[in-house]
């Protein structure tokens, strides 16, 4: 990271062209979000994993996504943007994967009406109880550590 200001709020990278910055941001936010979302889904579907993995180990992808949102950003401003964008992209991936069978498997509409509320309830509680705290603690820990370690 090469910063032109002492605060690290912005960096020289931000002086590159708009399209280049936007492209870089979209790729990073997309990758971080997909990682977080996949991690959230896997953590909440351990019954489908062939290998017997310790549940705590499965928190790593979500936590790591939060950490990467900060460490891959060239400046603190970009870090905040990536942190927020990655969080919401991840949430969309997680919820999308959770609800996908309802639309992939051509369930009748009556069955979708019946199943959707309970599945939304399941995924919403998972998002609040493990996805959000894990991703955000990874991100905030990286920001806090970054404030002391250069």
């Amino acid at each position, binding site marked *: *990271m*090469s910063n032109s200001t002492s605060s690290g709020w912005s*960096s*020289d*990278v931000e*002086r*590159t062209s708009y399209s280049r910055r936007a492209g870089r941001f979209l790729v990073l936010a997309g*990758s971080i979000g*997909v*990682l977080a979302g*996949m*991690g959230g*889904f*896997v953590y909440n*579907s*351990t*019954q*489908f*994993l*062939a290998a017997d*993995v310790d549940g705590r180990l*499965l928190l*790593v*992808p979500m936590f*790591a996504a939060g950490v*990467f949102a900060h*460490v*891959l950003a*060239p400046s603190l401003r970009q870090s905040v943007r990536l942190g927020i964008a990655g969080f919401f992209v991840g949430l969309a991936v997680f919820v999308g*994967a*959770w609800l*996908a*069978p*309802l639309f*992939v*498997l051509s369930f009748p509409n009556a069955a979708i009406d019946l199943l959707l509320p309970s599945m939304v309830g399941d995924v919403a509680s998972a998002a609040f109880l493990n996805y959000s705290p894990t991703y955000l603690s990874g991100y905030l820990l990286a920001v806090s550590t970054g404030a002391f370690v250069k």
Partner: protein
Amino acid sequence: MRVPERTTKRVALAGAFLLVFGVTTVTFAQAVSGHIAAMQAPSADVTAVDYEVTDDGLDVTLQVHNPTTEAIAVPVAQVNAYVDDEMVSEGTSTRLDGVAVDSGATQNVTVPLDFRDGGLERLQTADAGQVEVRGQLKSKVVEETVYLSVDRTEVDE
């Protein structure tokens, strides 16, 4: 204008990210496949096709079609035989060891049942079309429990 150099630290970070991303993608693919299969499994066709009186009791043959992308294990059958709505089998669940229906396969599963008192006599005096098999299979898609209900219940010997 200056673009940051590709330092060792940046390469290491990108490598670490790709490693975590790759491992997560593999486990995610497994989990999604299982999740979809578990939701599709209850639509499996389970049909009672035959029954046979044996020395120990009654062997009921169920034809199971697995439409999912994962194998469905059937560790427990909660199935009973009825004659004119009167239960002739013992009414308990039956443990089946090592029974599994592969993805996309149609397979016969034999469920051994015990007769309750007078059940055998009631079955032997029954006419064709009076005998029904009802119940469900307590099944597993990887480690997720799903219930498959027996669809068509009337059986001929």
